[in-house]
């Protein structure tokens, strides 16, 4: 079937009478065409992150609505350990820096450094999640369960969703380290890493908002 005679393109003079620009394909460089100049993947990721803003917006609003409404059980000011959370927040923010270094190394085509920085980012993220697990355990010991009161439900839901996002980010980063460099992802490695980077930075920025609104502003 492959040796079916192919029609020659652009020969019909008749075509040019009606539609002078008809033979568009010949003018375009091969590869994907994109009307905006952004790649499909990147545009898709931006839209997903836009949607995520509303997800976290809803969760943060829920937390803010219920601030100070708790009637029984531990209250925020009695359980928060601001210095500890500040340190783990700092660790998470630093992971954005290493993510940038990973993307930059990927754009240079430096596989070794890319892998190094991706692993570092994942480790910093894991440190943050570890800190969150420690924090949750400490709160639980102080009597704040998920069902204890409004503060418990809304706090664990909000920070839990964020922690889940970080965890998914770590899984993606480690998968990248393993899969990408075994040649298992076709297409541009640098772009895939950049996309995961966008996600990672987004999750970090959300944490800045959560840390400020949930921890720093007294209720």
């Amino acid at each position, binding site marked *: 079937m492959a040796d079916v005679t192919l029609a020659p393109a652009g020969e019909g003079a008749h075509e040019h009478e009606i539609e002078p620009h008809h033979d568009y394909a010949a003018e375009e460089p091969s590869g994907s065409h994109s*009307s905006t100049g952004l790649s499909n993947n990147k545009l898709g990721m931006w839209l997903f992150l836009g949607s995520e803003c509303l997800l976290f917006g809803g969760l943060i609003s829920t937390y803010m609505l219920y601030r100070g409404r708790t009637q029984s059980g531990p209250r925020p000011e009695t359980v928060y350990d601001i210095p500890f959370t500040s340190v783990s927040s700092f660790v998470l923010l630093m992971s954005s820096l290493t993510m940038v270094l990973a993307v930059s190394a990927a754009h240079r085509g430096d596989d070794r450094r890319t892998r190094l920085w991706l692993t570092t980012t994942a480790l910093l993220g894991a440190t943050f999640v570890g800190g969150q697990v420690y924090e949750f355990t400490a709160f639980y010991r102080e009597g704040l369960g998920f069902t204890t009161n409004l503060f418990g439900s809304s706090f664990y839901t909000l920070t839990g969703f964020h922690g889940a996002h970080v965890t998914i980010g770590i899984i993606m980063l480690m998968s990248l380290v393993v899969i990408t460099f075994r040649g298992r992802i076709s297409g541009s490695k640098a772009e895939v890493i950049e996309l995961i980077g966008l996600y990672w930075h987004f999750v970090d920025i959300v944490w800045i908002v959560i840390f400020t609104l949930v921890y720093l502003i007294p209720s």
Partner: protein
Amino acid sequence: MAIVEQPPRNLELPPASVVAPRQALGAFRRPTATTGWKSWIFTIDHKKIGLMYGFTAMTFFVVGGCEALLIRLQLARPNGTILSAGTYNEMFTMHGTTMIFLFVMPMVAALANYMVPLQIGARDVAFPRLNAFGYWTFLMGGLFLYLSPFLGGSPDCGWFCYSPNSGPIFSPTHGVDFWTLALQITGIASLTGAINLIVTILNMRAPGMSLMKMPIFTWMVLVVQFLLVFAVPVITVALFLLSFQRLFGATFFDVSAGADPLLWQHLFWIFGHPEVYILILGSFGIVSEVLPVFSRKPLFGYPFVVFSGAAIGFMGWGVWAHHMFASGLGPISVAVFSATTMFIAVPTGVKIINWLATMWGGSLWFTTAMCFAIGLVVEFTIGGLSGVTHAVSPSDTQQTDTYYIVAHFHYVLFGGAVFGLFAGFYYWWPKVFGRLLNERLGKWNFWFMVVGINLTFGPMHVLGLQGQARRTYVYPANQGFEFWNLMSTIGAFTLAVGVLLFIINAWRSLRGPRNAPLDPWDARSYEWMTTSPPKPHNFDAIPVTHSIDEFFHRKYAEDEETGKLRQVATAEEILAEQEAHAEHHIHLPSPSYWPLVVSAGLPIVALGLIYNHVISVIGAIVILLGVYGWAQEPSVADAEDADPPGGPGGESKELATIG
């Protein structure tokens, strides 16, 4: 491998029969079937996916319609005995949920999936596998919801599922759990579908097609998808909170713990009001395509129709609390939301004016599609006017929870959204199937539905103003409710006959020969510039756009002497022209197993959340495996995937990333 391609002169063959995909890097070979059931369930062709969306949504439409008929039978006489109070609650919940989430939304998705790539001159959507994933996830969500009647009881909290009424105390069966998780699943489908269509529309337009040269249906689909991207996460949050309360004992809606029941209402309606425009704007787009074609005039004020659609999209975010006027928000909130609600009538009115002006002075051709489009203009306007009466909050406070509200939203949703969809069915049927629907039967279909809708929902205005409460399974005799309720029930069955006539019409058409001409309506946009049904790769050569209604301008030109329009080419000539200059290497994405695998994991996780968390873990593993298989499947064209280049140029034009 990722790429299947096809010599251009061999167009009648489906692409995968030309080159067998090579061994994928994932665990399995990619599926290759081009016929039979495998070619459907593993397909990532936007047209096949659109068809599957359409058939599934139509099935749910019939199911939801049967539920409506049961409700109407119960209410035909005072003190009805057909349904118990509990079953009645389940019926109206399932009816609302089915019609909104499993019929109108996926039906718009069906038409958008099928038509948008054709209308913008693309060969597929931006992420074909994600597209398949969206369909399967929607199906899984729908089936999951319909598991509930067999597993202890359907949800009985209404489609809005107000808390604390939806909490474990007032709704002890697992129905509400099925409802929250099913909507979570269909939400994932909507979100991925929305991202996919936005990227497709923004990125994959044919050269020369600027945003303001896009067909109007594509424009309205774009607005709808933006609404979905931002509205779906809000209901996701609400559903999570409710699930956590019901499944894990969280306190979000526990009033005794200090919770605020308004939280649910706000979250739900911040989603729920944009949702209204999600349901209607697609139909507005269809009507804006159909009216110009059958009035044989360009759409009057194209930019106004575009921008009023976008304005509705923006303003739709600022009116949600008009669903909550009776909840004691306070005078300032009520006044503000009253005002914004009145304002949003303005862009809607602009559209109505544009449609009327499009028809004005045109040579109208009353096909069934045109009848339904005019039907939308009339019935939607009635619903829109009663909607403005709700914006007046004192009047709304009186009408809240009466049948007046039911009358209003059925006029806008049935008379608006559904009529628009039917206009689309009749208009695009020959494009999709290469067969015409019977116009005579179509007229019967139309008139049964018009009479049916007005007979069903018209009397509800009266009943509502007389004070009949909605969501109440019986009404007493001698309150003056009997006559109009009986009329409404008769109307509902008239409506059902109308729908049945459509199904008969469709069935007869599909069994008949391919009799449709290439361009039966003398249409104006790109989707008519290819064969009917379209080739697997849509267009042999991607056309270049010079103006709105490009296809029309290729068929007709102004005579330089007389200044009148004259036909310069027929659709057949334009198609032959295109086929003669077919592109050499048309890369189409290969089918894939993974979208189905990942979707199949979702209801397993959901079932596990309700019954046993071990099942959830199994589901999560299925999803994880599916995602890794998906990620390892090549997603972009590789030079080696192509056949040896044929023809003089040897250049290849690949479809963008296969997502």
